[in-house]
């Protein structure tokens, strides 16, 4: 066993069972998956991305490049989870990734033997031809061979949520800097949030043996955490990764509430926080980096500080005979802690020769390097540059530290190189951000605590708080010293990026082929591009680039760090906005009533609208729709049209305002009348249409199309506030306040007369086509009546306060029986408007002008209105301009298809012969055949001509005749009846 008898921050009283590739193992409460695997002697946990090399656990934190595992099973499974960040829980099921056959005998390891041929750019260069092979053959094979974990392809059953937090000071990281700063801020009264990605707060304190104020580091940390918990102005967020620093002090953070995915009560598994801060303090510490030598990727080769953490925090010894390879003082701390814990230390190899070894009673080599390693599935020995071979099963490597500067770069901050510590430290910071501790390149605790005292006073006073005195801190640790990067290239197969399998040879090749710039090198070699975003590999890569280019590291700079710091699942970004919650539906006032009539619903913008109302004996939707159309045209139909946008316009300049926003004249519209209005965009393209009624001299009611209700209102507010700000105009949207119904058909007047209160006369004479008025119905319910018709029938639209809609529909159903009233849906509505040749969304598609729509004559030539000037440009008024016309198939058995393109008969089907397209089609039950509306060049002059309607999707060609768009009752006698 690899577990120490005692020590560590684990609860030996609580055993947790888990399985790895089906093998039953156990660990303790407080373990991570990685520490439990190591305690069971499992170094080998996966295969590498490209060469399928055996890979083990490399680190103890979120920077882990190798130990990516598949967590859980079934629909809950999550791929590419770093074993080092998962808290162990009972019955956890884990499998390894990216191998064919057993992990120990991966069949794809052949790639490793082929590796001399698989260098940078291999895929770009090799799989070029034949071109057609890429999609069908090469890509599927490559995707199969290279890659990481697998998705379940089932719907994720877990729940995710989003939340918003506000604070004076967000502290990121709960190591010594974060805790001490948080305490200082908490005592001052500032509102503090302290977030850390680990499930146990304390950061590096939990993995160190040093003493602070005469207690162990972890106890010192725990005391502060206990005190922090007592403050109401402090919120602690463990298991929460701050992954991005955005504009104006806004941070994104992911809290992983639960890894098991087995929350029964639908509590969220993960929460995406948006944190609004006045100031922020980055205490993210530093990540250790490796050293470069031949075959430096074998399981058993680990970061030195991580080895020390496994020993101190989890009581796990990752090897029986451990060696340490370092270029700095930190490696010696690992040696001392392991030795104190009773490990067998084989040797310490330090690249520096000019140091005084801090531990004497130990075997060590000064001024030496490791140049190669041996071993299969596990490290067995290392070879030094003096050719001596040392047997060892674990090599703890320390190549210095990279401050975790990522969040400082999210707004284009550029890190600065510090020669003394051989690392990049934060450059220019986002506004409101401060950095303390190792993240700032300050590694000695004494300096860190001094920095906290200085900076916190400034930060807190800027927030309006006074610093209270903090405890004096005494501790025992020596200053830090690190050796410089080597200036010669290491020999052999040397891995720079463990996760993406990028070696020194790949970097060499990239530079040879001209990819000198660090950004190009990254993309060509894929250095630092994987899920770890190069937390270990970036600076190592830069050190190689600097050797290859013979320039210092600071001159090549770094690539840009972008959010997220660690991967964030798509599910967390989606939150609860999934399925029908992706965009909540708006329901029409008659929705419940329509449900009771067994309506079939369709999404129309945000709305759910009744599409048709099937009767029990009807076998197809066409049967229902045909019936609805025929009965409406024969007797009377009713349709909920509440979804049309309604805008109430008041003020002395309302008439002038409508003249300005509509292309046709409205100023002279008499009170009590309605007019059709066409709205253009400023560039002359048709924007929207609808009707506007004048209820009194300075009071208009506008309707818009359902789809454009929001954008038209926005546009009108722009015209009102930005273009005509001196005018007296007031707007309010009343779409949701008025339920509106179209009542259409020859018997509509008779039906309406039944509900009118006395005193309202709706005879054709006193309430003719295009009349409107405020009336009352059902004995005192106020309503608005508009005699307008989209169907071409004698028709009205009746608006009444929304709350009456349901009882209104019930009453109408009852009263309508003797008139043979039929409810109709959007489908019948569409059929009737196509029979009448009215333009709708398909025709107002953002490409068409008033001229195209056959409405050119409506556009004002005299007034200044939005869009009329640009609609006069030459291109919109060419002789062969597209015109909206009707189409019928010459063989009435044929059905037309919307989207078909028109080609003159006998001409080749080619883009240059394209004359226009079919925009709307329907089967007309009145005409007994398929009819269509569409745009064709000079269409208004070509009635009777035959062209081909080509549908390339089905390779169909239908001969059609160009007709007037007014298929049914072209003179409009019915609507004036």
């Amino acid at each position, binding site marked *: 066993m690899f577990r120490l008898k005692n020590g560590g921050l684990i609860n030996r009283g609580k055993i947790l069972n888990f399985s790895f590739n089906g093998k039953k193992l156990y660990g303790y409460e407080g373990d991570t998956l990685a520490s439990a695997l190591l305690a069971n002697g499992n170094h080998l946990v996966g295969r590498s991305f490209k060469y399928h090399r055996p890979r083990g656990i490399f680190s103890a934190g979120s920077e882990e490049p190798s130990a990516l595992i598949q967590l859980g099973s079934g629909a809950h499974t999550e791929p590419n989870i770093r074993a080092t960040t998962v808290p162990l829980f009972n019955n956890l099921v884990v499998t390894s990734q990216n191998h064919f056959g057993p992990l120990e005998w991966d069949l794809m390891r052949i790639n490793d033997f082929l590796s001399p041929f698989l260098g940078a750019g291999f895929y770009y260069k090799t799989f070029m031809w034949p071109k057609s092979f890429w999609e069908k053959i090469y890509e599927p094979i490559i995707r199969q061979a290279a890659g990481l974990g697998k998705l379940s392809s089932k719907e994720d059953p877990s729940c995710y949520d989003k939340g918003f937090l506000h604070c004076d000071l967000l502290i990121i990281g709960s190591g010594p800097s974060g805790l001490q700063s948080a305490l200082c801020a908490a005592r001052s009264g500032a509102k503090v949030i302290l977030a850390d990605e680990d499930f146990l707060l304390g950061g590096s304190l939990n993995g160190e043996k040093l003493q602070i104020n005469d207690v162990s580091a972890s106890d010192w940390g725990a005391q502060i955490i206990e005190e922090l918990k007592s403050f109401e102005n402090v919120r602690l967020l463990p298991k929460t990764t701050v992954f991005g620093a955005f*504009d*104006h*002090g*806004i941070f994104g953070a992911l809290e992983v509430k639960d890894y098991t995915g087995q929350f029964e009560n639908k509590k969220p598994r993960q929460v995406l926080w948006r944190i*609004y801060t006045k100031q922020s303090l980055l205490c993210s510490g530093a990540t250790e980096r490796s050293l470069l030598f031949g075959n430096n990727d074998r399981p058993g080769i680990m970061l030195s500080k991580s080895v020390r953490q496994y020993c101190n925090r989890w009581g796990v010894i990752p090897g029986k005979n451990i060696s340490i390879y370092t270029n700095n003082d930190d490696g010696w701390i690992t040696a001392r802690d392991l030795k104190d814990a009773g490990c067998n230390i084989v040797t310490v190899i330090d690249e520096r020769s000019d140091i005084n070894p801090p531990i004497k009673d130990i075997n060590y080599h000064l001024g030496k390097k490791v140049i190669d390693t041996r071993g299969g599935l596990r490290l067995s020995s290392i070879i030094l540059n003096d050719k001596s071979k040392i047997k060892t099963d674990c090599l703890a490597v320390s190549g210095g530290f990279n401050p975790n500067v990522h969040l400082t770069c999210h*707004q284009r901050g550029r890190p600065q190189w510090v020669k003394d510590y051989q690392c990049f430290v934060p450059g220019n910071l986002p*506004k409101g951000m401060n950095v303390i501790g190792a993240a700032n390149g300050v590694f000695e605790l004494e300096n860190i605590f001094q920095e906290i005292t200085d900076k916190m006073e400034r930060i807190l006073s800027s927030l309006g708080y006074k610093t209270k005195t903090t405890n004096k801190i005494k501790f025992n640790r020596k200053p830090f010293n690190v050796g410089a990067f080597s200036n010669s290239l290491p020999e052999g197969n040397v891995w720079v990026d463990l996760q993406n399998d990028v070696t020194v040879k790949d970097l060499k090749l990239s530079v040879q082929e001209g990819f000198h710039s660090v950004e190009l090198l990254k993309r060509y070699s894929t250095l630092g591009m994987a899920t770890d975003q190069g937390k270990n590999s970036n600076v190592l890569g830069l050190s190689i680039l600097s050797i290859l280019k013979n320039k210092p590291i600071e001159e090549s700079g770094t690539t840009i760090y972008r959010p997220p710091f660690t991967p964030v699942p798509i599910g967390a970004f989606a939150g609860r906005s999934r399925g029908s919650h992706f965009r909540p539906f708006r329901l029409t006032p008659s929705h419940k009533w329509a449900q009771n009539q067994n309506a079939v619903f369709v999404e129309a913008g945000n709305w759910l609208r009744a599409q048709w109302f099937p009767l029990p004996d009807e076998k197809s939707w066409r049967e229902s729709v045909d019936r609805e159309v025929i009965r409406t045209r024969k007797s009377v139909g009713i349709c909920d049209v509440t979804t049309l946008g309604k805008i109430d316009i008041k003020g002395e300049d309302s008439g002038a305002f409508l003249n300005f926003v509509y292309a046709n004249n409205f100023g002279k519209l008499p009170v009590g009348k309605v007019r059709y209005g066409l709205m253009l965009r*400023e*560039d002359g393209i048709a924007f929207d249409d609808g009707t506007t009624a004048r209820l009194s001299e300075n009071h208009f009611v506008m309707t818009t199309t359902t789809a454009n209700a*929001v954008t038209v209102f*926005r546009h009108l*507010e*722009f015209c009102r*506030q*930005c*273009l005509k*700000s001196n005018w007296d105009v007031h707007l309010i949207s009343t779409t949701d306040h008025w339920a509106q119904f179209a009542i259409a058909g020859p018997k509509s007047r008779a039906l309406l007369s039944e509900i009118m209160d006395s005193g309202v006369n709706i005879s054709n004479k006193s309430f003719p086509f295009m009349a409107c008025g405020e009336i009352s119905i059902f004995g005192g319910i106020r309503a608005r009546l508009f005699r307008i018709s989209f169907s071409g029938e004698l028709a009205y639209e009746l608006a009444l306060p929304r709350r009456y809609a349901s009882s209104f529909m019930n009453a109408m159903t009852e009263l309508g029986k003797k008139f043979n009233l039929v409810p109709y849906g959007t489908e019948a509505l569409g059929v009737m408007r196509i029979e009448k040749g009215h333009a709708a969304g398909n025709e107002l598609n953002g490409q068409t002008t008033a001229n195209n729509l056959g409405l050119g004559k409506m556009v004002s030539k005299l*007034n*200044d209105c939005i869009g*009329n*000037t*640009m609609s*006069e*440009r030459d291109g919109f008024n060419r002789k062969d301009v597209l015109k909206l016309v009707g189409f019928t198939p010459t063989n009435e058995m044929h059905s037309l298809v919307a989207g078909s393109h028109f080609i003159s008969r006998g001409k080749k089907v080619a883009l240059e012969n394209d004359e226009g397209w079919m925009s709307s089609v329907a089967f007309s039950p009145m005409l007994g055949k398929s009819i269509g509306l569409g745009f064709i060049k000079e269409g208004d002059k070509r009635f009777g001509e035959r062209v081909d309607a080509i549908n390339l999707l089905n390779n169909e060609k239908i001969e059609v005749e160009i007709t007037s768009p007014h298929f049914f009752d072209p003179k409009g006698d019915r609507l004036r009846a």
Partner: protein
Amino acid sequence: MIIPHPYLGPRDSCEFVYKGDAALLFRPEREDPVDYDTFHNYLYLRNNPAGEHKELWYHEYGDRSWLVITRNTETHEILKVELAVDYLKAQENGN
């Protein structure tokens, strides 16, 4: 981003809709004869500076005010927020 609304205080930018260059406020009047070039320039020519920029935002999920916001396009720093109607008045008065 956070936009300090002159009446409603700091608001998250997700409450707003962006339109573009504030030059859109200065729409030419249609006169006889029609000057098509002026309209063309108004419609299509925009400045796209790296740095300070006056632009139009609409507080759609708020009080429906159109705002003129002076923003640094490089740093996203917001330097000034005015109601479009106030901005236009100030322009008229020559301030």
